[in-house]
């Protein structure tokens, strides 16, 4: 018999009035696995996490922690630990007292508590901050304390509720790397909720993309990125251009009726469809010459994004955006070639 998964959700349902926030979600998190719930706001990812933590009541299905059903237990009887977006540190307790809180509730012996506080603060690199109050810490330090407080109780699963979304970019990247390092070192099981694809890609063993209360796709970050199972996943997981097309035998036209001379590899079935490409995979001017899918497009405007220039182009009724490192020697109003490989596009209908 194999060991039970760290966490298992079976057909979990949560309704708020007439709205189904979590619609029949099933999910298994293996021991030591880091699973991210990725989705826009209102997709049910936070509700799912709160159901596991015990802050919401289940309307259907079951939740198993280490093979034991926990959905009937109140939050304080569940062996989970949440890192909240706001940190939710106790403002009247010092850093050490905050970290000790969960240990005291679990009736860990005093000397052991001292050891574990030191260990947890060491792990999040906040040694020497024991006597500080939360108000005396920066945003990033607060989240580290929150992490230490949750790690110290050594829960069966850690629940991250968008812990980095309130921080500025550089701090977010730094803490993201740190959480990844901690996971590699400590091998804890975790569910991480975020709306930031970058975070999801960088940290996860697996990513579950959620939409309208359901999981659209769950797989490794690479697979989700390269082989998105649906139009929603494709558009959510990275930047994309949408080309609405009408296929009628060999005839290919945009919505305005202009002919579109694209090869499209295998000829798809007739009807309305949407073709997607990613700005980073598009080639411009001379680089587009040998590619199977090619259009002549007029440069509409150019954005400088730091690493790349983004060329916004128009070809008939189609609008495209292409990234190019450095200038291509053409300005607004010029007509240039734009092209991409067959494997860099996706067709949805």
């Amino acid at each position, binding site marked *: 018999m194999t060991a039970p998964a760290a966490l298992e959700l079976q057909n979990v349902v949560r309704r708020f009035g007439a709205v189904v926030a979590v619609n029949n979600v099933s999910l298994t998190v293996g021991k030591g696995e880091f699973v991210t719930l990725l989705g826009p706001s209102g997709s049910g990812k936070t509700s799912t996490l709160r159901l596991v*933590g*015990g802050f919401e009541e289940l309307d259907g299905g079951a939740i198993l922690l280490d093979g034991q059903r926990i959905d009937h237990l109140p939050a304080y009887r569940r062996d989970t630990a949440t890192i*909240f977006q706001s940190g*939710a540190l106790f*403002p009247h307790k010092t850093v050490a007292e905050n970290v000790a809180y969960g240990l005291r509730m679990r009736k860990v012996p005093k000397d052991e508590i001292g050891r574990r506080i030191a260990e947890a603060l060491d792990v999040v690199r906040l040694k020497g901050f024991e006597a500080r109050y939360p108000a005396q810490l920066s945003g990033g330090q607060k989240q580290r304390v929150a992490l230490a407080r949750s790690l110290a109780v050594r829960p069966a699963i850690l629940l991250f509720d968008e812990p980095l979304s309130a921080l500025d970019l550089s701090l977010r990247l730094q803490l993201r790397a740190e959480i990844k390092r901690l996971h590699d070192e400590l091998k804890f099981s975790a569910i991480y909720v975020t709306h930031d694809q970058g975070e999801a890609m960088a940290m996860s063993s697996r990513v579950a993309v959620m939409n309208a209360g359901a999981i659209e796709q769950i797989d490794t970050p690479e697979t989700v990125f390269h082989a998105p199972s649906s139009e929603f996943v494709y558009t959510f997981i990275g930047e994309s251009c949408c080309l609405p097309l009408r296929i009628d035998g060999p005839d290919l036209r945009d919505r305005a009726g202009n002919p579109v001379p694209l090869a499209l590899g295998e000829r798809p079935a007739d009807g309305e469809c949407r073709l997607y490409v990613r700005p980073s995979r598009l080639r411009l001017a001379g680089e587009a010459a040998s590619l199977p899918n090619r259009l002549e497009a007029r440069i509409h405007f150019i954005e400088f994004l730091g690493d790349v220039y983004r060329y916004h182009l128009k070809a008939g009724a189609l609008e495209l955006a292409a990234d190019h490192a450095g200038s291509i020697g053409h300005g607004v109003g010029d007509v240039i070639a734009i092209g991409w490989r067959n494997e860099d596009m996706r067709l949805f209908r």
Partner: protein
Amino acid sequence: MTAAARSDDAAFAAQRAAQERRKALAPWLLMLPALIIVLLFFGLPTLYMVRMSFNLHFDQRLYVPGFTFEHYINLFSNPLFTGAILTTVKLALVASLATVAIGYCFALLVWLKPARWRLLFIGLALAPLLISEIAIIFGWWMFFPKNGLLSYALLSAGLIHDKVSLMYTEFAAFVGLVYVTLPYCFFILLSIFDGIDKRLLEASADLGAPPVRTFREVMLPLTWTGILVAFSQSFIWTMGTYATPSALGPDTLWTMGFLIQEQMLGKHNWPMASALAVVLVAGVAAVMILTRSMQSERNSFHV
């Protein structure tokens, strides 16, 4: 350095100094109107009252200028007065504790409930403040007597077999006092609750604390300042108020407020009334200092 540059430096330093002086003066200027009002209409009369309490009193004359400790000695030796002090403190203490307890539960409920209930509860709490204390007393007069609402309600509910009157009892005085101070207590506590992140309750439960433990470890310490402030304001109010306890309580309920009124208007003994008032003010001040000292430093971190 040239002479011109030096004189520029000197002018600059002078301007800086003037700026500093203005900065130091600004808070005093801003406080001035309030300070004048407080000193003129509160400080001065209080001082005058203290002076009055040492004046002499003979016959039916309101007061005779002089200096005597007679009224204070009388106040602390006459069982009529010591009894009144004790009654007042006891009534104020019990009423304030009850007010804080009820107000705390009410504010906690409003804080925990979804926002759409909030306005309704706040409206309910505001309603008594729109009615004068006298009108409220008339309301109680319809509520407590033998043929009043309470008696009728209890009888119809089958809880009692004979009509009862709670009018002119210490209980009625107690209820009246709680009712008057409750709205203030509620708003003070609600403002404190509103400063607390509700996620803290979840964080506490998440770390394994049952509700009672969460209350003791998180809610109570974070609201302690509010409890003390709400208690002091209730206590000050119930110590000093005169109309409600004398209108609802028994004739024998001699509170300090009642005695001050009686000494002043009935006995024409202004020095005695002043002495009572001084003791009242001193007692209230002592309680305020005590509650202030019970506020721990840590509470300042909660915002």
